């Protein structure tokens, strides 16, 4: 007799899978809720499994990083020489800024509270660029909070569960961030396309953008605070892209800023409710 795969259960589950796919495509509310609920339920298993696998995972990441960076050594040595020159210049500018600030009585940027969370799972393939982190409602996270990794903006919180959250990376095709580009602070929109380097859209025709220009959040729209570093301009001036500072392929720990979207400028620290467990970024 021919063996059968799953019997009558197989067509039923195939139908359910297709139905879920359609609901997913329609972005049904039940699907979003189910995602967070399932992620919450599975997170203890993931946390447990990550402990014994940590040495293996770290070794794999280190080998991958070493292979990738071996080619960059010469480039880094040259860049280090150049940056040493900039260091002296930066110190001089910092001193001047301090003196000018004292004369003008301007307020310094306020410190912002944050929590640090671990990345538990990452997306793959052609669909989305996102990650699951092990912090949620318990840590007082909310949708929309900016997420930093290492040296720059990496994502924003998209959905919050009890102990886990889903963050949407800035390279995701649905990510749109108002930014300033270069010393002229030219306005643009940083748009993800699921590739490694998001694009700069809606640059003013008279804006001069060149490779290496810094890209920071503009704060326009109130989704992100102003001045978060994102990356530097890469690619040609006709189709500029941004090389992001955060290493999005190797996210391990991220910091989530307690910044309420739509509040405009960040209020002074002492006027904000300090969430339990939050640290203060210095």
């Amino acid at each position, binding site marked *: 007799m021919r063996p059968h795969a799953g019997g009558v259960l*197989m067509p039923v*589950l195939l139908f359910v*899978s297709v139905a879920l*796919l359609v609901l997913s495509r329609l972005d049904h509310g039940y699907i979003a809720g189910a995602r967070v609920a399932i992620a919450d339920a599975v997170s203890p298993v993931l946390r447990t499994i990550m402990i014994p696998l940590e040495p293996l995972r770290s070794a794999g990441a280190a080998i991958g990083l070493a292979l990738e960076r071996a080619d960059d050594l010469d480039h880094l040595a040259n860049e280090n020489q150049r940056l040493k020159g900039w260091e002296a210049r930066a110190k001089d500018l910092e001193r001047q800024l301090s003196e000018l600030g004292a004369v003008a009585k301007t307020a310094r940027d306020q410190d912002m509270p944050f929590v640090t969370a671990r990345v538990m799972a990452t997306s793959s*393939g052609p669909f989305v660029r996102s990650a699951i982190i092990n912090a949620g409602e318990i840590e007082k996270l909310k949708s929309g909070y900016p997420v930093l990794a290492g040296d720059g903006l990496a994502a924003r919180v998209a959905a919050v569960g009890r102990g886990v959250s889903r963050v949407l990376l800035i390279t995701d095709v649905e990510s749109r961030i108002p930014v300033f580009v270069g010393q002229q602070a030219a306005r643009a929109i940083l748009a993800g396309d699921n590739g490694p380097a998001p694009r700069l859209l809606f640059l003013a025709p008279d804006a001069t953008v060149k490779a290496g220009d810094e890209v920071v959040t503009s704060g326009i729209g109130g989704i992100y605070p102003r001045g978060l570093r994102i990356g530097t301009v890469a690619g040609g001036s006709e189709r500029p892209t941004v090389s992001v500072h955060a290493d999005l392929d190797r996210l391990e720990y991220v910091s989530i800023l307690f910044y309420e979207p739509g509040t405009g400028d960040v209020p002074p620290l002492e006027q904000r409710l300090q969430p339990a467990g939050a640290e203060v970024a210095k």
Partner: protein
Amino acid sequence: MTSIAGRLMPAVTVAILAVLAVLPWGLPPNARFVLPFLPVIAIYTWSGRHPDRLSAWVPFTAGIVVDVLTNGPIGYWALLYLGSMMLGVDAQRMSGTGSAQRWVVFLASLAGLVFAAWGVASIYHLGLADWRPFAWALWITALCYPPLAFVLRALDPEPFRASNDRLVRGV
């Protein structure tokens, strides 16, 4: 009579590979796309060797978990894992006993599955999906099959018995 280990081994190995597929390994997203294909090898192998011990619920649940944790469309990997189960059962009838024959049949099944995966992704996006991560996943999964299938066979407490075994008179 099948032992408890024999009954649980297929589900356990599929579950382990599904969880490993979503952990952050530090790979670029397109390279990472091969990881959810590793449970395909386990589902294909077990459904060929012991179709009665792998309930359709196992690939379905594993697929849903992978879908949720990779934040992909829910139902995508569940559909592909169920497809690999059907291919595994069918391929078992065609495969010979040699490793090379099994690998060739798996490669043909996998090519069909990856093409279906690309097709579903394209329909989902209402546009042609980038074929490169799928091509990458095809070749890496094909290369992973021999060692992973070897390990799975070694983990099988009750060796595979061909479905056309002849009945023999007892003594």
